């Protein structure tokens, strides 16, 4: 018989030490040995992050993602959109996270039966079936300590026996009959700055990746409208399916019936150079000398364009060249560690006070006899600024229709460093 499988044939979960700790087949059983091709690629890639996401083998294709120290390896037999598979795998990982609080090998092993039920519910014959968290939760209840105790006493199960209400309605993301005593709607505007700063301190590339994450606990079927002071900032936006696209196109208002609980309302990108403020600057002097097998390291971080807010949670990580044996540094603020195996220098700076700029300097010891490193390391900076969306995006108001009660509303802003790199 000729097997044709449109979508995902099988799924293997593999941990970092190469053990296959779960397998699920949606049609026929595929031998674990297919993963050997994956292990081969993994070996070649050296670093776990560098394993190519699409691998071809003589009879199958392996499409994988790497999340939370677990490889999700799916086996495909025919032409299939790889993004479809990758998106789905990420959705599986999200669901585990949602159900078990963490997506880890232990959590999965501890809940193996629920995992299996979930996977079966999420995919049928390779067609995704139910991937919305609230629908899944109606079909299969998430484990809680209380429930497992109750279940074992009463003999009831954690499988819902009625059809989820949202499954087929025009708003599949929301179930009917939601009730809360405190009605609340919270929005977090979170912006991450991705930037590459060159040696001289000028910006090579910068953009803002923003999201609005929401936590909505409202009874009934509320219909919300969220408007902004400056919606023109948002010209490249991806929406949650609940948002009425036409309304946005014509009025620049986010109008939607929200899912229940936590979800990502929109994600957006601000790329025009003048809108992206760079909140910190870095002064650096890193040099190596061949004859003495040593080098100098001197880095200072200071605030810049921070709109009067405090830059906090600053951490600098540097992948030092292989030839570096160890580092002997002094920090004026915070603490540093250097891992001589991975060659990663981490400096936990904390808050930047403009009066006294944090500085880290000292000697670098190189392997004697080794040639002086050609490449200069890039500095990876993390930071956080509370109560500020660096793009200037501001929520104007939130209106609710369709329900009578007065909800409690809140908006929080935060700016973080995304992939923020300073070349030296």
């Amino acid at each position: 018989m000729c097997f044709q499988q449109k979508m995902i044939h099988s799924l293997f979960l593999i941990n970092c030490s190469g053990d296959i700790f779960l397998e699920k087949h949606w049609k026929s059983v595929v031998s674990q040995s297919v993963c050997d091709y994956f292990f081969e690629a993994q070996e070649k890639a050296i670093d776990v992050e560098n394993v190519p996401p699409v691998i071809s083998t003589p009879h199958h294709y392996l499409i994988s993602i790497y999340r939370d120290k677990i490889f999700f390896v799916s086996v495909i037999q025919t032409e299939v959109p790889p993004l479809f598979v990758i998106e789905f795998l990420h959705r599986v990982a999200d669901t585990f996270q949602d159900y078990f609080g963490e997506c880890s090998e232990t959590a999965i092993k501890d809940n193996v039966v629920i995992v299996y039920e979930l996977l079966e519910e999420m995919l049928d014959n390779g067609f995704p079936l139910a991937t919305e968290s609230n629908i899944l939760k109606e079909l299969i209840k998430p484990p809680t300590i209380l429930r497992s105790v109750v279940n074992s006493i009463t003999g009831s199960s954690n499988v819902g026996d009625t059809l989820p209400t949202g499954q087929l309605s025009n708003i599949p993301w929301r179930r009917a009959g939601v009730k809360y005593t405190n009605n609340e709607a919270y929005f977090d505007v979170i912006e991450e700055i991705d930037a590459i700063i060159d040696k001289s301190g000028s910006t090579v590339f910068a953009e803002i990746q923003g999201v609005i994450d929401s936590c909505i606990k409202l009874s009934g079927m509320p219909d919300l409208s969220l408007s902004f002071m400056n919606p023109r900032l948002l010209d490249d936006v991806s929406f949650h399916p609940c948002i009425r696209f036409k309304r946005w196109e014509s009025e620049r208002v986010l109008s939607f019936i929200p899912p229940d609980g936590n979800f990502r309302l929109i994600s957006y990108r601000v790329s025009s150079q003048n809108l992206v403020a760079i909140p910190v600057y870095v002064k650096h002097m890193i040099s190596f000398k061949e004859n003495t097998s040593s080098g100098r390291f001197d880095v200072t971080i200071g605030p810049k364009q921070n709109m009067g807010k405090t830059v906090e949670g600053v951490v600098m990580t540097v992948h030092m060249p292989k030839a570096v044996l160890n580092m002997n540094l002094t920090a004026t603020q915070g603490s540093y560690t250097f891992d001589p195996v991975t060659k990663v220098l981490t400096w936990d700076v904390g808050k930047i006070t403009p009066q006294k700029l944090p500085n880290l300097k000292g000697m670098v010891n190189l392997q004697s006899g080794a040639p002086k490193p050609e490449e200069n390391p890039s500095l990876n900076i993390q930071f956080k600024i509370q109560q500020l969306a660096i793009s200037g995006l501001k929520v104007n108001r939130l209106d609710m229709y369709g329900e009578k009660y007065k909800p409690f509303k809140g908006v929080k802003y935060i700016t973080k460093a995304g992939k923020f790199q300073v070349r030296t």
Partner: protein
Amino acid sequence: MTDSKYFTTTKKGEIFELKAELNSDKKEKKKEAVKKVIASMTVGKDVSALFPDVVNCMQTDNLELKKLVYLYLMNYAKSQPDMAIMAVNTFVKDCEDPNPLIRALAVRTMGCIRVDKITEYLCEPLRKCLKDEDPYVRKTAAVCVAKLHDINAQLVEDQGFLDTLKDLISDSNPMVVANAVAALSEIAESHPSSNLLDLNPQSINKLLTALNECTEWGQIFILDCLANYMPKDDREAQSICERVTPRLSHANSAVVLSAVKVLMKFMEMLSKDLDYYGTLLKKLAPPLVTLLSAEPELQYVALRNINLIVQKRPEILKHEMKVFFVKYNDPIYVKLEKLDIMIRLASQANIAQVLAELKEYATEVDVDFVRKAVRAIGRCAIKVEQSAERCVSTLLDLIQTKVNYVVQEAIVVIKDIFRKYPNKYESVIATLCENLDSLDEPEARAAMIWIVGEYAERIDNADELLESFLEGFHDESTQVQLQLLTAIVKLFLKKPTETQELVQQVLSLATQDSDNPDLRDRGYIYWRLLSTDPVAAKEVVLAEKPLISEETDLIEPTLLDELICYIGTLASVYHKPPSAFVEGSRGVLHKGLPPRTGSIEGPESPDTAPSGEPAADQPSVIPTQGDLLGDLLNLDLGPPVTGPPMATSTVPMGAVDLLGGGLDSLIGGSGSFTAAPSSTAPTNVGAPLGSGLGDLFDLTAGVGTLSGSYVAPKTVWLPAMKAKGLEISGTFSRQVGSISMDLVLTNKALQVMSDFAIQFNRNSFGLAPAAPLQVHAPLAPNQSVEISLPLNTVGSVMKMDPLNNLQVAVKNNIDVFYFSTLYPLHILFVEDGKMERQMFLATWKDIPNENETQFQIKDCSLNAGGDGHSSTALGSCASA
């Protein structure tokens, strides 16, 4: 309390223990036991021995237990087909359960049990479920049809499930529509010829409506299905595009990419002058860029697709160069792809930025990435002429770093730069020569040797340098040996006095001491050349080389167009058509971009135009004349008469030529009618002539039957440059009722070619090879072979533009090549098309007068050839 307890084993033997628990009377114990069985299954343990015991647990009111048993059944039913029958009754019963969840679960599970015996029992419940009142059940049943079709296609067709499935496309629930589309697409994929997804404007409209309402996954199915639709005109294409555009803002990247595919494909039909075209271009950029901020795996797939998109429509992303700048902690597979796209987007406007980035990358840690970055600098130099100087100096800086692999890469690309800009940057040769000793990779050594040989006259110690390589001649790789041989011969031709000894040495090394045939042959050729005619040798060896092309790694246009139709699929990741790699892809569906139908053609012709074939001009001279014809017909077709004075109006061509040229041009031949062949035509036409006008009607038919129709001279269809040395020229002919494609394959490469195969794309008349391409012996270099490939017209049909366009793929051991050509329509004309006189006259009269043009044929010599004229004239009219 966690599920890990299910993994603990006991001493007695697990299976035995489980068996006992499964047969326990206590419900709770049973459930726990099934859970343990499932847990074992998840780690790949074989628990199939418990099959009967687990199936016994199936009849239960407990939904969780039922689901668990179903899970088990799906895994093991195939290995225990006889036992699986035991489950059938429960399935059938569950399909009628009042709870729709259970009905759906049952029909879903049944479809997953790939046991022939069970499928028979599945039909009735499935039929009911397809018409169930609950959409959740209908949606599940739709998928089940696809599953069943996979197990037993005949059964599904016999039972009429396909029609029911088609009806579901009009279902009121968008989820059901989406699943029906998904199921139909899957079935259609395995039956490319069937018209399962017969899309028409009405069904498209339904799909577009469902698109707005169904889940993200359903949207992907619908978009992929839409992409296969061929809108009838630009207006329809635009309206579909307008309704698909909102999907670009979806959070699911697979939805976005599928929408991009639809837009990229239908855009082809829109005129570039439309305002909407520009709007659409602008709308495409942001979503593509957004994909790059997603997880690295998504980025990778997105980048592979963007690579295709920038080749097809560079204008979309031309201002977005910066998003492709590499971050040091990007995974290597993302880095390499970004680099590739950076080069494709490099232009005069942004080259400074690009170069600065590339220079930065060239000092990174990862060796593969550094190499590619260095190579990229060279490619920039070749692509953007204004930057060449800066690129060369950047490369020189890099060479100064003395990092071994950087130097080697730099030398390889500098060789290409020399080829592109001769006599411009040779001053750097001295610097290159300093690094001679550090080169240990064949490609770099060969490049360096090439440089020394090519510029031997400028390098004082060229002979010493080459001699130093010669010492270890036999340890070098073939690439280096060949290069060394050529370089030394070049050196000898440039400086004959000092290097005689050296050239003799290398020739003897190559011819006597080597067992590599390529090397030996090249050695002998040089030897003979040098010994017989040194002047000729100089002309050959030191001949001026053609400049290398702008970009060397562009995807061939017809393949690119096909790949654009596969955006978002595996094909787009591998940059190969699915037929080339997907195992068991039944029936090769070649997809092509739709032709542009807009009334206003853009100034630049679409790049889909077939390579090297100028569209045939409209025939300028058609020997058609109304009253002349009237005269001829009025002659009553008696005895041979002196026809009216006839001649071609412009060129004093012979009768035969007129026939050839006239017919050919009239029916839109391959554009080669300037050179009418004098060798074939006379023999073809000569015989039936001479009996005068009496044979007029027979003649028109006779042209086709007896002697074969006009055969155009062979033209080059596939130049060697485009096909790695394979040149194909050919023509079409019709002989006694059969069509054939006469080909000459010439090997202009240096290696032997073999394993030839040919395939046609679908075309207007269903032309297809009637036999495989037979090339009996491998084709040696510079050898050519003539083949006559019989054709038939039973292939699948797709309207082409122009109508007689034929796309051909030729494969050999080296690669697959694509070309397209136009075939003359007369090869399709059947020989028995003879018409009764009255019929002809009647048909003639049906043609409105406006369509007639008239002219006089003068100075016709009154011989048999004259009849040829008139007959042709008639023949032409008849076919006009």
